[in-house]
């Protein structure tokens, strides 16, 4: 289980850090991507477009180095639920947008929407995040309880 948890941490960490970093270079595109969902009032579009990537990078880094793993996993799960709801609602309302999950975003041709794949991917990640929140102890983590060491000494 500890090595599985490590794998989960690395997977989620890399996905979230990459997703966050890719949203930073083009602030105008980030704003358009958030606006394209047509869910938020204009005053909130900017803060969400600019703040969300920071949260993604923060929880991603926490997962990668292994501190506050349970909290980070829960925040990750929460974000994923928000994304699933957002993409699902865009799908249900017949909007033709790219999710903007890894930068980009905005409208695409009907043939280029990828809602099922986007939702499935997010649900998969959500399951991983929930499992990690349930069993957060892992190898190669900087913080957390000294669970692996205890097991090691017992093994010796």
């Amino acid at each position: 289980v500890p090595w599985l948890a490590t794998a989960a941490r690395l997977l989620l960490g890399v996905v979230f850090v990459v997703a966050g970093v890719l949203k930073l270079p083009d602030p105008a595109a980030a704003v358009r991507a958030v606006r394209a969902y047509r869910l938020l009032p204009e005053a909130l579009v900017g803060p969400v477009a600019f703040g969300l990537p920071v949260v993604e990078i923060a929880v991603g880094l926490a997962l990668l180095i292994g501190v506050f793993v349970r909290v980070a996993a829960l925040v990750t799960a929460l974000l994923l639920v928000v994304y699933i709801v957002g993409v699902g609602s865009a799908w249900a309302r017949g909007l033709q947008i790219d999710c903007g999950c890894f930068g980009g975003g905005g409208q695409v041709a009907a043939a280029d929407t990828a809602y099922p794949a986007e939702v499935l991917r997010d649900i998969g990640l959500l399951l991983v995040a929930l499992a990690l929140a349930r069993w957060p102890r892992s190898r190669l983590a900087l913080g957390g309880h000294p669970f692996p060491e205890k097991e090691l000494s017992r093994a010796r």
Partner: protein
Amino acid sequence: VPAETKSGAKRAAARKRIEEKRAAEAAARARAERRRRTVIGSVVAAVLVVVAIVAVIVVQSSRNSTNPNALVPANTADSGNVIVVGSATAPVTVDMYEDFQCPNCKAFEDTNATTLASLVAAGTVQLHYHGMAFLDTSANDKYSTRALNAAAAVVAQAGPTAFQAFHDLLYANQPAEGGSGLTDDQLVAYAQQAGASGEVVEQAIRDLSYGDWVKNVTDQASKDGVTGTPTVLVDGTKLTDLSNAGLTQAITAAQGG
């Protein structure tokens, strides 16, 4: 001897109890210390994250802010956001949101430009061009922005008719997406061909004089709810069938109503 042993055993037991108690106290202290460190660590981390969020929001907002004093090209309408082609008395308005680098826009233009031109000439349709520039890449040297900036220079210098000619030239000669885009020299040449020549136009094209305006109209299009190109509105209703038949049908229907 037995008494001594007994008292010795008692003493050993007492010592053991004391040791156990001390160990438990030490463990409790260690736990408390760990908890204290965790709390401090959590607070520091939370503060850092909040500071980072605020800082990034501020920085990105300033990077994304558009210049309210942007140079607006002359011969435009609606606070400079729209370039109007055709008669003011035309019964049908067609709004078009396009990016000069967008292949689907070229496809739409290839299919419908002739039809629209004849409807404009007949006084049936007034075209409202809304520029957008969101397909800038380093490979095309920000071609979306440079092309729309050049179009602004053309309309400012020579009016909507020249703009229409320049617009048609750019779509007829659209560079491949992912390619290097047209050069400024080519843009200047097409502007000249469209009827906008002279040093002022050339300088505006090379200096990106309407760069802030390009940002503003792109932002405005996004606020209009347009999230992609081409977006075509016939009398305010979004056209879903972008074929020639679809466009003609929608315009005829709008004319009837």
